[in-house]
């Protein structure tokens, strides 16, 4: 492995460490659970059914926002929060994973048709 890719791996790990630190809290994990499959939600929607106050929920959302796993989007007078998987599993990482699977499948195809 080259020095360059090693340091980019290290940088990625560091970034992941921050993301996991942000996720290392039951309230924040439950907020991610609410956001990770579905529509952007407002603070009021996220506060519903929780014992926590609006202010406390907002604080937790800001922590998630600071590591990029949650983004706020303005809709009218209201902010809505949405999940962004990019910091942990970006499109490129996913494509790389699938690409590796294709390499294996195509080499099986090669032996299949050349035999």
């Amino acid at each position, binding site marked *: 492995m080259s020095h360059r890719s090693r340091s980019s791996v290290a940088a990625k790990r560091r970034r992941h460490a921050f993301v996991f630190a942000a996720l290392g809290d039951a309230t924040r994990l439950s907020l991610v659970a609410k956001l990770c499959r579905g529509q952007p939600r407002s603070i009021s929607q996220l506060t519903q059914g929780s014992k926590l106050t609006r202010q406390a929920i907002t604080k937790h959302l800001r922590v998630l926002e600071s590591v990029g796993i949650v983004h706020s989007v303005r809709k009218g007078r209201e902010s809505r929060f949405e999940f962004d998987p990019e910091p942990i*599993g970006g499109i490129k990482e996913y494509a790389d994973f699938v690409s590796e699977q294709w390499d294996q499948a195509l080499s099986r195809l090669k032996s299949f048709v050349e035999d």
Partner: protein
Amino acid sequence: MNSVIEKRIELKAPVSRVWRALTDYREFGEWFRVKLDGPFAPGQVSRGRITYPGYEHVKWEAVVQKMEHERLFSFTWPHPKSLDKVDTALDYSGEPSTLVEFRLEKTAGGTLLVLTESGFDKLPGDRRLEAFRRNDGGWTEQMKNVENYLANYVSENHVAQKP
């Protein structure tokens, strides 16, 4: 942003042979490692089960797009949410998919096969979490814990919610 996978591979076999390996569902299943229920047909859903050791519980589902004789074979497929769980209840219809295209070209030595897969930007976040988990060994366990937690949380929360 739209990441596209492109692979070019030279095969020492005639175009007709490669075409058959791609489009005959039994032959496709041999090298791809999937047991398909029936033949491919444009516009039709193709279903089956992965035969790759350790992944036999994973469903395979695709919609065949084009079959242009000995030139182009393409299908769209949604990516499974998780390769660890038995997901029999999963209904793939209406799920965002990627497009897989196999293009064949005759060469002096046989066949040039160009494979592309595009549309990754449309896939939902949970598909990508799965890949992340698989790619980055160091975080595998931790990511699994997060996933389990989310799955339990969602199901508990669902039960707990009263109208």
